């Protein structure tokens, strides 16, 4: 069955069964590989995307339930890495393997949209569904504070790292 999905501001038509999780429509049909598969049962948060700005686990969100909601993936947070969360993640150098980080950043962006100046406790509550197998949690906390600073001081800038692309 064909479904219209609004992903990162663009409308796509996907011809898939209603029960196919949004994760696999994104990855295998729309070829957006940034959203990751980790557990398939909403335990790890690697597949976190936004539906109308609200963080959701794409691995347990059937395509048939998305409707007209706007889907934002890591690719849509900003394609050039200019979103304060992306800038902060690069400045704090959060990742080790990096596999969970798209999900971490999507959860962090949703937190900051609702709570621009979160406390450590706010962070721990909002981020508790995102596992990091490498254990980067201390830097996740630091990066969210940094992103909060960047967003509120409106000084977000493009990530400047040598050798990209």
């Amino acid at each position, binding site marked *: 069955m064909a479904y219209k999905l609004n992903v990162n501001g663009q409308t796509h038509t996907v011809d*898939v*069964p209603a*029960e196919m*999780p949004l*994760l*696999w429509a994104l990855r*295998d*049909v729309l070829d*957006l*590989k*940034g959203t*990751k*598969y*980790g*557990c*398939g*049962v909403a*335990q*790890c948060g690697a597949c976190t995307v936004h539906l109308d700005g609200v963080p959701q686990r794409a691995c347990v969100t059937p395509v048939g339930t998305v409707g007209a909601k706007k889907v934002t*993936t*890591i690719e849509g*947070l900003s*394609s*050039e*890495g200019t979103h304060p969360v*992306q800038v902060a*993640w*690069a400045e704090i*150098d*959060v*990742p*080790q*393997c*990096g*596999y*969970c980080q*798209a999900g971490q*950043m999507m959860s962090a962006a949703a937190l900051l949209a609702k709570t621009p100046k979160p406390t450590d406790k706010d*962070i*721990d509550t909002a*981020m*508790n569904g*995102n*596992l*990091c*197998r*490498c*254990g*980067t*949690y*201390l*830097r*996740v*906390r630091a990066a969210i504070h940094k992103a909060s600073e960047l967003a509120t001081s409106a000084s977000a800038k493009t*990530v400047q*790292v*040598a*050798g*990209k*692309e």
Partner: protein
Amino acid sequence: MKKMMIDRRSFLQVGLKVSALAGGGVMFGLQIPNVVAQGRGGAPQTPLNVHNFITVAADGIVTIVAKNPETGQGVKNMLPMMIADELDVDWKNVRVEQADFDDTKYNAQSAGGSTATPNNWIPMRQVGAAGRAMFVAAAAKQWNVPASELTTGSGRVTHKASGKSIGYGELASTVAGMPTPDLATLKMKDPADYKIIGHNQPTYDIKKIVTGKPLFGIDVTTPGMLNAVFQKCPVFGGKVVSANIDEIKKMAGVKQVLVIERPRLTEAVVPRDPGCENGIAILAETWWHAEAARKKLQVKWDFGPNETQSSADQAVKAAEMLKAAPQWNVRNDGDADGALKSAAKVVEATYSYPHISHATLEPQNCTAIYKDGKVELWTNSQTPQGGRQLVAETLGIPARDVKMHMTRAGGGFGRRLTNDYMAEAAYIAKQAGVPVKLVWSREDDMTHDYYRPGGWQKLTAGVDANGKLVGWKNHFVSWGDTASKAFAQSAAFGPAEFPQRFVPNYKLDASVQRLGIKTGALRAPSSNAFAFVIQSFIDEVAIAAGKDPVAFRLELLDAGGPPAGPDGRPVPGMNAERMKGVVKLVAEKSGWGKKLPKGTGMGIGFHFSHQGYFAQVAEVTVSAGNKLKINKIWVAGDIGSQIINASGAENITHGAMIDGLSEMMSQEITIDKGAVVQKNYDKHGMVRISQAPGAIEIHWLKSNNNPTGLGEPALPPVLPAVANAIFAASGKRVRQLPISKDGFSWA
């Protein structure tokens, strides 16, 4: 002829040992399977060619090849940093390119055993220094001046006397035709002149990671590719009898269904990497179509001889073995039984730890194209060389016809030292006749791992009237084959494990039972369990001796001579002075001995592994109902003269602490009716952000030794540090992992 063959083999074995030693020690040569894996079908070590690593464009942009697999340990930064610093270029002008697998160009390409730093510290800097020498020689020729009058910096060669200066880019075409100078003759930088080594260089792929670009093995796509799932027999060694294959073939999106049957293994001890198992592969348009079809799969299995095993029965048998006489003696120094008889005080305790899974967040996967007797693979293996050999054997083709691209891995932790998923993808692609991306589900991943083997240790120690350790006995109950005295993979106990040689009377005995699941190396193999056992028990002995745990450890470290092999000659074992250094440092930085509120306590642990010296102090609070909070962890580490990438080193050390805490609290794999019970993160948990320590403070003790690895040796001491802190805070001694079994949970 026969004699010559034997001689040649023994020569090769010696060669392997020597090269392991040259890389920094026989110890890890014995402990780390990837060294063995590299020996399988590996090319001989050849002199490195600068042109395989460094390319400078006319505009001065320098491309450096990163040869090793990047699993999150930061090696894609670190090895190019070594080259770039000696090449004398600015890091901002460096582009790093991930190598494909090609051991004729790069020699060893692996990620395991914390070996990247010690094995590459000299050769990678030599490659950079050789490149620099080539640019200097090119400029000397162009200007007709002696090379000795030239200096370099920021990718330029300068002749001070004449004021001439030229960029590497302008010399690149000349250098491209020059041979690599003899690496051994090169002068390398004074460490005081490092501009890249020893500084923070953020994760090279950071922009791709934060913008969600395809980067990992699971992100690979190739034209005409089908997505595959592979339902293996839940019991290791089983095989398919029959299945509803016709029904599955009709399901939406399904293109092919294949029964995979491989020879049955009959060894008493499960081999290191048995490779492709038996089962049913489903190939479909998308991975989800394949997975949805798998949920309808009904298979009649022949489970084979492992069907009857269960962890519960094995625990009962282990308890019997602990009471019985040991099956064999591994090491006997002095007279441990006699020393314990005459000791002023004797302490006895039994410790245990379970099997655990690696649970890399990116599940195992591999993409394969098989055509005309050759296979091309995209893999995130930690040992591509071993993988190549396994694939070649599986497909019955020569190793040279296995081509491998290396992708970033979503975590390694030792899981990808074995290459079963690679063999499976290659085999399925060959059977299917189309390109295949095989992705394991989380359930596949957790139930078909090479688990860290669990074990039991019954320890007895005696102290004299002065509180000095005089005797130590350990009955190690593990897995393997009694008749051949062979341990299962990663289930052995090294005969030089601390406190051997620090106590005059030391006895290590072993008993084993058969285990019918795969086992293997998990980050800091054996150390991740042994440090918990040994350093917790040492605390028990210190307390029985009426001594402070730090003071007791320092006295104990004073009691051993330098490490020596059976012939009395020095071997690269633990240097007690270096270990004392980190113990003293961590005690000082943590304020060891300070007064703490009721319910809060500090504990210490130290451990030597992978040539690294680490000591940690944990401060924890235990509240009502055994709720545990980790307030802070102090880390002191001595891994030589340089911390090559400070940002990466800090991050990896944070991770090692948190990884250790996950192992401690909540991870356990059990078997029932031959199959693994835990299938996802809800049953084999890891630390979440709210449970992470409030702070981790790291101190590096820079010593006059070549730099060594970090990813593994940082981990082991955190478990006993926390266990000993729990005792200090609550009076409760934890002797089994995970501690959730004793009613502990995160506050």
